């Protein structure tokens, strides 16, 4: 039997696969019975029902390589068990299923009789592609830029201070309260809040923390972690390290991440694995903090500020893969007048189609719009003119779907709705000025 010549690239890709091949991955690769029942669970298949969009078909590309390496029959009679030598064209062809048509949402996993973790397999594929320089350039660039920013933090510090001072002024004006502060580098603060690049994740948080009388400080860095999308723990760890070091230096009790699904997946769930243990601080999403504030009565909210029906899109990273299902609902029930559930929702919610880093890759715009068809149908069926979400990636994707499918809805973050409700309550409680005689 002729064996395909192994190039340096193939060796590198196989090496990357070997490095991630732990017991969980072996089980996911071995157990699939190819029953096909996962097909409709995947939003990509549900939106564009082609055999190659069946999760098991996507994973077969990696399984075929695994079997050739590790299955006794795969070594002797590859045709019998669907085993295949990895070739460079195979690697090239793996980029689309791994990075564009699988968002690592794990909806197939919860619908599989074996619980096959297809996302884990596709992450292995991403690791192979990243190791052989086949990952989307944009993701690599964003990850490396974040690492560079961490390495040159001192150079950014003063510029950042100036930007934050401007934001502080804006927040004061919006709230009508000159005592509002956006603290930076506050030693001993309880919360280190990590936003994203863009004022929209900092301004509402500043207003909320001020109103809740929280002890907080703003991080120098952004929460997103593109290393996670690349399946590259070294890059992901370097990106997370910036926040971990900052939190330890400031001695905070908890790191609170802005509305971002993958940032939560990265720092809350994955980063302890990269660092070899739990952190000396808690990691929470702002969604959990908001739910606590609502429950503890720390925020006066007037839901009439958001009178239109609002539906909620669960980010896969926060809900199905992060367990934050009830928290956003506690917040919504307090902040809006008419909350309507999408069907299905919670852990069964469909991915918006922009997860897994896809929303950042311009060349795959059409792919993600097609993959979002199921979500667009869900939104239409919910019939609410406002769609809330707690994830920046989902927000971007839903906004694009809104235009692409003419949904005619408004896409908003949870914090925005809370700030609306909070400002209205504040105005209502304000003592009116005596009328001029």
């Amino acid at each position, binding site marked *: 039997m002729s064996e395909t010549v192994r190039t340096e690239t193939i060796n590198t890709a196989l090496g990357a696969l070997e490095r991630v091949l732990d017991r969980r991955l072996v089980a996911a690769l*071995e157990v699939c019975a*190819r029953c096909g029942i996962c097909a*409709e*669970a995947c939003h990509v298949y549900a939106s564009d029902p082609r055999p190659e969009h069946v999760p098991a078909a996507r994973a077969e590309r990696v399984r075929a390589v695994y079997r050739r390496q590790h299955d006794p029959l795969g070594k002797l009679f590859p045709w*019998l068990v669907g085993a295949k030598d990895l070739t460079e064209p195979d690697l090239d062809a793996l980029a689309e299923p791994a990075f564009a048509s699988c968002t690592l949402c794990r909806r197939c996993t919860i*619908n599989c009789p074996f619980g096959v973790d297809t996302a884990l397999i596709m992450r292995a594929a991403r690791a192979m592609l990243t190791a052989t320089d086949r990952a989307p350039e944009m993701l690599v660039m964003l990850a490396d830029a974040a690492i560079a920013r961490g390495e040159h933090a001192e150079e950014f510090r003063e510029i950042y201070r100036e930007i934050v001072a401007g934001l502080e002024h804006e927040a004061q004006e919006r709230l009508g309260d000159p005592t509002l502060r956006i603290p930076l580098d506050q030693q001993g603060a309880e919360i280190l809040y990590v936003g994203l690049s863009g004022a929209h994740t900092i301004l509402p948080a500043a207003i909320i923390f001020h109103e809740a009388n929280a002890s907080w400080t703003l991080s120098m860095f952004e929460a997103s972690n593109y290393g996670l999308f690349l399946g590259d723990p070294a890059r992901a760890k370097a990106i997370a390290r910036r926040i971990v070091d900052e939190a330890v230096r400031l001695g905070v009790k908890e790191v609170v991440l802005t509305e971002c699904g993958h940032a939560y997946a990265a720092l809350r769930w994955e980063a*302890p694995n990269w660092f070899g243990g739990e952190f000396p601080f808690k990691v929470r999403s702002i969604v959990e903090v908001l739910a606590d504030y609502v429950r503890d009565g720390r925020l006066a909210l007037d839901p009439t500020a958001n009178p239109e029906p609002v539906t909620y899109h669960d980010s896969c990273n926060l809900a199905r893969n992060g*367990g934050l299902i009830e928290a956003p609902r506690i917040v919504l029930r307090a902040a809006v007048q008419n909350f309507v559930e999408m069907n*299905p929702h919670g852990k069964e919610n469909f991915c918006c189609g922009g997860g897994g880093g896809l929303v950042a890759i311009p060349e795959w715009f059409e792919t993600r719009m097609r993959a979002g068809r199921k979500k667009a149908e869900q939104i239409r069926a919910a019939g609410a003119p406002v769609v809330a979400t707690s994830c920046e990636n989902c927000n971007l994707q839903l906004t694009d779907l809104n235009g692409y499918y003419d949904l005619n809805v408004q896409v908003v973050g949870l914090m925005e709705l809370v700030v609306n409700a909070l400002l209205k309550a504040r105005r209502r409680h304000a003592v009116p000025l005596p009328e001029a005689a």
Partner: protein
Amino acid sequence: MTPAWAIILLGALAVSVWGLWGHLRRTLARPWRPELSRAAGSPGRGVIYAFTWGMAPWAKESTRLHLLAYLRGVVFHVGIAAGLAGLALIPWRAAVPAAGEGAIAVAAAAGAVAGWGGLLVRVTEHNLRAVSTPDDLFSVALVSAFLSAGAGAWWGPRWTAPYLALGALTLVAIPLTKIRHCFYFFFSRYFFGLFYGRRGVVGGVQHE
């Protein structure tokens, strides 16, 4: 059962156990990377869920939508259990009451129908055809043939020899073919329960 058949079947069983032992060793030789993040829920309860309620047809959208496929799978696997139990009992067949003989025959027959039906679906449904390997077709056909022979053998002794032969072949095929998913099932469901239980998604200990 003649001594020759006993030797063949015990040999096949030994190959099967030895093969699965090899899988166990190879799997355990791989790193175990437990999640180190603070648990939000209960990993233990997640594992219990994974092997109990999590297997119920109403627990998953996929089985709610495809109840027939789910039932076909259940009947097939109950049939396999009956077929293997029947294989183990065959030397003591004379002591098995008629009701027991009938139950094994019926379960195996139903399993065989489900198996052949599944094979038909696999070759006619375009998604399944696309994801299937020759191993998938061979394995389902082998097990279905084994169950058919088992149903025949427990109905009347004429089918005993094919039943024993196909039983031996099935035992040998377990570690070599996709049939070994029966072994990896336990790993996979365990990891599923651990992962989602820890994150407070399943198992009753919710996040918030």
